[in-house]
């Protein structure tokens, strides 16, 4: 694993998201009401809606364009056939770290 520091958790709004640019395209980093942090591709499999602009509720996000709801743990869309790719993130001393290995290995593949 290759942990990359992408910022402080407080830079992400509670029940909100920020996006990061990566070689794979934009990745959305979500922060729930309980300070859990998740990361997933920022692009909705339906019609490319930017998920970082969606409403974050529980451990899910709702796409801003047509309201598909994704479970941030698994990336699976609820009651729709579709999923987003999730990435490992963890928070250490307030810093948000993302697993760059997965981003790299995917770009290599």
């Amino acid at each position, binding site marked *: 694993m290759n942990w990359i520091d992408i910022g402080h958790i407080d830079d992400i709004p509670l029940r909100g998201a920020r996006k990061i640019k*990566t070689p794979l395209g934009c990745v959305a980093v979500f922060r729930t009401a309980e300070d859990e942090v998740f990361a997933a591709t920022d692009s909705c499999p339906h019609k490319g809606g930017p998920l970082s602009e969606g409403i974050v509720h529980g451990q899910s996000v709702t796409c801003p364009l047509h309201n598909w709801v994704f479970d941030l743990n698994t990336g699976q869309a609820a009651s729709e056939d579709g999923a987003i790719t999730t990435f490992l993130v963890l928070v250490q001393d307030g810093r948000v770290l993302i697993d760059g290995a997965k981003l790299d290995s995917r770009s290599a593949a």
Partner: protein
Amino acid sequence: MKQKLVIIGAGMASGRVIEHLVEDAPDAFDITLFNAEPRGNYNRIMLSPVLSGEKTYADIVTHDDDWYAAHGVTCRFGEHVTAIDPEMKVVAGQNGHVPYDKLIIATGSAPFIIPVPGKDLDGVITYRDLDDTNAMIEASAKGGKAVVIGGGLLGLEAAAGLAERGMDVTVVHLMGHLMERQLDEAAGYLLRKDLERRGITVRTQASTKAIIGDGRVEAVLLEGDETLPADLVVMAVGIRPETRLATDAGLSVARGVEVNAQMQTSDPDIFAVGECLEFDGHLFGLVAPLYDQAKVLAGTLLDQAAAFVVKDTATKLKVTGCDLFSAGDFAEGEGREDIVLRDPARGIYKRLVIEGDRLIGAVMYGDTADGNWFFQLIKDGTEIDEIRETLIFGPAFQGGDTSDPLSAVAALPREAEICGCNGICKGTIVDAITNGATDLGAVKAQTKASASCGTCTGLVEQLLQVTLGDDFQMPTAQPICGCCDLTHEDVRRLIKSQELKSQDAVWQELGWKTRNGCHVCRPAVNFYLLADWPLEYRDDPQSRFVNERKHANIQKDGTFSVVPRMWGGITNPAELRAIADAADKYDVPTVKVTGGQRIDLLGVRGEDLPFIWADLNKAGLVSGHAYSKGLRTVKTCVGTDHCRFGTQDSTGLGIRLEQALWGSWTPHKVKLGVSGCPRNCAEATCKDIGIICVDSGYQVSVAGAAGMDVRETERLCDVETEQEAIDVTIAFVQLYRENAKYLDRAYKWVDKVGLDWVQGRIADPDERQRLIEAFELSQSIYRKDPWAEHATQAHRYQPLADLTLEAAE
């Protein structure tokens, strides 16, 4: 040749046996049916609604004379069977003998009478059949006091029914809490509170010593020598299987008539079904297992292999407003773990009992919507380890699918039992619906689901909705979404009455089933809170749809559009120049004149938003809120300034209205139009509020629209001065903010409350003043340009990090 089948007792169990027989083998038997009651089969469990007056006897008859005639059943109703002779294979009725080839004993049970002095007095009634029910109805007509002995299911249904009929009711219960066999103490306590709230007195740990009276009951004497005056005493302390005939005939009888898994008694040609029997040490007091027995017995009689197995049963109480559910084993014990959820404000209690990795018991009070789902987990012995943490929140929480209001039902497997009484599973109901049973009545007729006690009616309706979608109109009020059980109206009311001033208070006190709502309910709750508590609560951007959070309209490619305000549709060269410069500087692909008399810059990159806003701000341009559930535009015409027909300064009034109203959040968007004369060039009569200027003043009309519905406005009032026109408009907007359901346009709301009501409120000078002040209070916080504020936080609009650079390094 047809065999002679004699049945003793026309109750719920034997009724079901006959249905199976006439359906599967109409020519196999000649059936003679005895019944001690002078009537055929009715839905005994619905006697309580008959008692309370919700139903009549005619409503609960399951088989009428025509039905028996059509199926060739010889009825001997009102005739007791007095003896069975197994050797000669005849039964003796009061009016004569009948020989049989096969005999079914279905005599049910008899109410248990506690052997106290006075038990035989007039006015002491048990609760078992229609005659008892009618006797209670008759007694209650005179009013007075009733004492119900026994705080179990039957006693409480009797108590509630009598209270409903106006009697002053006391329940005397021997044990420490009500329904102790079905409920634990906590649930028993809540039940007691609910009953007390409806005026029923509950005495627990109270033992009856005697019933006092001279020929007729006058009082109940308790142990400890307290007397409770009584005009009516209902004894509902329990039942015991009606086994006398079987005992006399020499059949093997324990507490009930003993049968094997084929429902056969110790005599191979005599069978038993229903509450009168005992199987493997078990007695039965609810209909679900009896229906299973009936099915097995019909199979046995038709030489089909069938065997009865004992399943768990779930209990519900049929007293409106007392919502309880219990299933499985919920005694405390070694190695058992409890999960408890309490919501004191709403009187909700849920307790799950887990042993190892299985759910073995559930008790719920106040909110029993998930009861069936838990019951299914218990019956299936499902491993619950993975969902243990969220289990108590029910199916809606599992798998994160909280967006669909019907997800709980949708998530149930096809085998899940919906109608406990009749053992009908979801698959059967769904198949019936897809085969054309598109309303509750049809589903009931075809599947029997919800045809007995009726507590699953809600579930069946939800299945209709899940299966038929929009083709099915749910008869009852809809909860906001799957996160809660309350309607928008209830939530608004409770936020005000319980003074809930934060989202967390709403989630907790109103029993939200999810952590913090979903994209459907959270924006609504956010609006209700800010509309009702403008000082204590602040708008929460994270509970807003992206457009309102970012103050720009998201486009299909993820870029945004930027619409600055042009007050009343008026602009000037400096503003136009600033717009042109911004369009150049930020490579805006499309510049369009909107339908709302202003200019739209479409296709702006998210990162550029704070900068383009800062530039526009410099020229005095502010957000046009083209994205918000708030004031959009005030469309005007040129009015007296230039037009030869203009009667008043329509442009000026439009600008003043826009400046008064801008920035406010409303349930849905609000659009205004002000026309200088009835030619109506500003299209005022299809706006949420439209003002037509006339020589004598201003005609203010409301509740128009020209979107998905096209609606002409209706006249709210006529006023003489411009100030009054502004006052009335503001008062109307505030009334709408305080009362409408989130996402109801003004016309939908006015349709619901009625224009008369709105007119009355606005016409009342005190109320109008209050509304204006409340609006101004809120505007002291919200009447400002969100763009200016966001422009200072440009970093929030940039990516958090750019790893493409990192990779390049």
